[in-house]
């Protein structure tokens, strides 16, 4: 019998449907794998009973002939999604023990589609980080190691580090991620998997712990393009409970998948060639261009002149929104409370928030508070929102002449744990290629392209027009077919 944990989302769905194996067997195989993979620290909590119940329901549904789109597929859920009755912490001490009485729309959609939950996935605290080193539950390890024979811990990227690690190590066939400034795409690139951030508004933000509301988007992470399409179809959809949700039907992305991209025009933004990026990144980018050309696409040079301002813009807007979004963690209605003896309300707030938040979260709250404070609003926040409009306009203009953009996903391969924690800005630079599409709300997907000299994965990013997830997925599929990325991390855990 095949090792069921080697299968992807679509394969499991099809296999259960065709009676090749039982959903129960799939769930048990992954549950065992999750237990075996604890050294990766990818899961915050394991929920085998949820996965098994969904599997049994799937097996029963097959018998009665009413299988759902994800029947039999066990998934990992990032701990940013509220899961009813299951601890939801956003990787923060602040929410340790918090059990929501409600379900996020995205996880609810997946469960309604028949999926089960293997557990909640570790992440950077409140999704703030690019290396999964800010979680109160500790660092997540990538299953990948450098090919130097050493056993140095490698980051899976962040903030969806637990998600990326779990898929790459085959602890789960697919997972949810969230992307505020690259948190799906950068970890996907670091771990050699695929992940798509859809157009802002495709997936409801209801029940997703907010980091930066105007940027946060949920999306799937999985082994390949098809699996991402399958999962995104189940996750996305209009939701009245989110005012920014798009009132549009969910396209049949999977059914319309096609790697025939002949005649598509693909832009190569010159501003994404930046100093200090390793030659291997440029090389893999050139390789990617060649593959798409081979697939019949026309390659066009384009300019996105405000690209270099995207990261500073992001580091004003995201902390500003976060400083406000995280004000609700005050020790009054849920979560941790630290109340000094005989302390007043303000002292309770200050002690609670000092103990509940980690260093990076505090840093961003402070930055956000500062840029919104009296006298600085126009110079920082309003200026950033104007530059953001210019960045979106750059994309809009580029998309008048091209259908898609191809860029690197991250400026390097995965780095070692601890290597960048001392310098926040060096860490922030990880998202230099991911952030512009976030600011403009565009669909963007990371696909693995190859390995670098140290044997670590490198990925490229496809960015599409608003709502053109199909175009992105199709080009990614054409890319995937040519890249033939089959590398796997060796199981050392």
């Amino acid at each position, binding site marked *: 019998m095949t090792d069921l944990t080697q299968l992807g989302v679509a394969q499991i769905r099809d296999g259960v449907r065709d009676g090749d194996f039982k959903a129960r067997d799939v769930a048990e195989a992954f549950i065992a794998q999750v237990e075996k993979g604890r050294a990766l620290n990818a899961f915050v909590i394991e929920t085998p009973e949820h996965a098994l119940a969904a599997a049994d329901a799937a097996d029963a549904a097959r018998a009665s002939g009413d299988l759902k789109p994800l029947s039999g597929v066990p998934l990992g859920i990032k701990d940013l999604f509220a899961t009813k009755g299951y601890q939801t912490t956003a990787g923060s001490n602040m929410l340790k023990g918090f059990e929501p009485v409600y379900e996020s729309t995205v996880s609810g959609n997946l469960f309604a589609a028949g999926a089960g939950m293997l557990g909640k996935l570790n992440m950077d605290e409140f999704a703030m980080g690019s290396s999964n080193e800010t979680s109160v539950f500790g660092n997540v390890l990538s299953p990948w190691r450098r090919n130097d024979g050493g056993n140095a811990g490698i980051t899976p990227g962040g903030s969806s580090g637990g998600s990326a690690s779990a898929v790459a190590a085959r602890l789960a066939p697919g997972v949810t991620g969230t992307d505020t400034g690259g948190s799906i795409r950068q970890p996907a690139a670091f771990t050699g998997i695929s992940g798509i951030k859809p157009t802002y508004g495709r997936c409801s933000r209801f029940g997703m712990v907010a980091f930066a509301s105007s940027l946060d988007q949920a999306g799937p992470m999985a082994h390949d393009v098809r699996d991402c399409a399958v999962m995104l179809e189940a996750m996305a959809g209009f939701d009245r409970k989110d005012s920014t949700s798009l009132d549009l039907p969910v396209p049949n992305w999977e059914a319309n998948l096609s790697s025939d991209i002949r005649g598509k025009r693909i832009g190569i933004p010159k501003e994404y060639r930046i100093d200090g990026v390793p030659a291997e990144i440029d090389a893999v980018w050139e390789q990617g261009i060649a593959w798409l050309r081979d697939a019949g696409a026309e390659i066009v040079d384009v300019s996105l002149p405000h690209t270099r301002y995207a990261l500073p813009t992001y580091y004003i807007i995201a902390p500003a929104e976060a400083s406000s979004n995280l004000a609700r963690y005050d020790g*009054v209605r849920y979560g941790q409370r630290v109340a000094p003896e005989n302390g007043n309300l303000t002292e309770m707030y200050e002690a609670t928030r000092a103990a509940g938040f980690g260093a990076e979260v505090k840093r961003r709250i402070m930055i956000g508070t*500062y840029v919104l404070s009296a006298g600085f609003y126009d110079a920082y926040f309003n200026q950033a929102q104007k530059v*953001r409009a210019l960045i979106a306009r750059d994309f809009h203009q580029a998309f008048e002449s091209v259908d898609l953009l191809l860029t690197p996903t991250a400026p390097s391969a995965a780095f070692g744990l601890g290597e960048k924690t001392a310098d926040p800005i060096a860490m922030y630079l990880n998202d230099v290629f991911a952030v512009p599409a976030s600011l403009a709300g565009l669909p963007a997907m990371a696909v693995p392209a190859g390995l670098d000299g140290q044997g670590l994965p490198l990925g490229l990013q496809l960015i599409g027009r608003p709502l053109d997830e199909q175009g992105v997925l199709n080009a990614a599929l054409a890319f995937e077919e040519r890249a033939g990325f089959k590398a796997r991390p060796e199981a050392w855990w």
Partner: protein
Amino acid sequence: MSVDTATVRHIARLARIAVSDAEVEALAPELNNILGWVEQLQEVDVSGVEPMTAVIPNHLRLREDQVTDGGIRDAVLANAPVAEHGFFAVPKVIE
């Protein structure tokens, strides 16, 4: 622009985060560094540019005026660190 320790304390106070002297000393140069870096936005010519208001063109949907929620006091209080007699409880506020 320069963030001194007094500013750090002020910001921490606004954000309701207790900071030790050592943290203040450490945060001041860090925040300075980050704010100095984002400062480069000042050089962008934004004349005639409206600040972004909607990430993706979309319009605000409004709810009907109907009572569809509430009556879930126990659920609302379920995760409260301290709840008594149907209320959340906080250290006494002297007004």
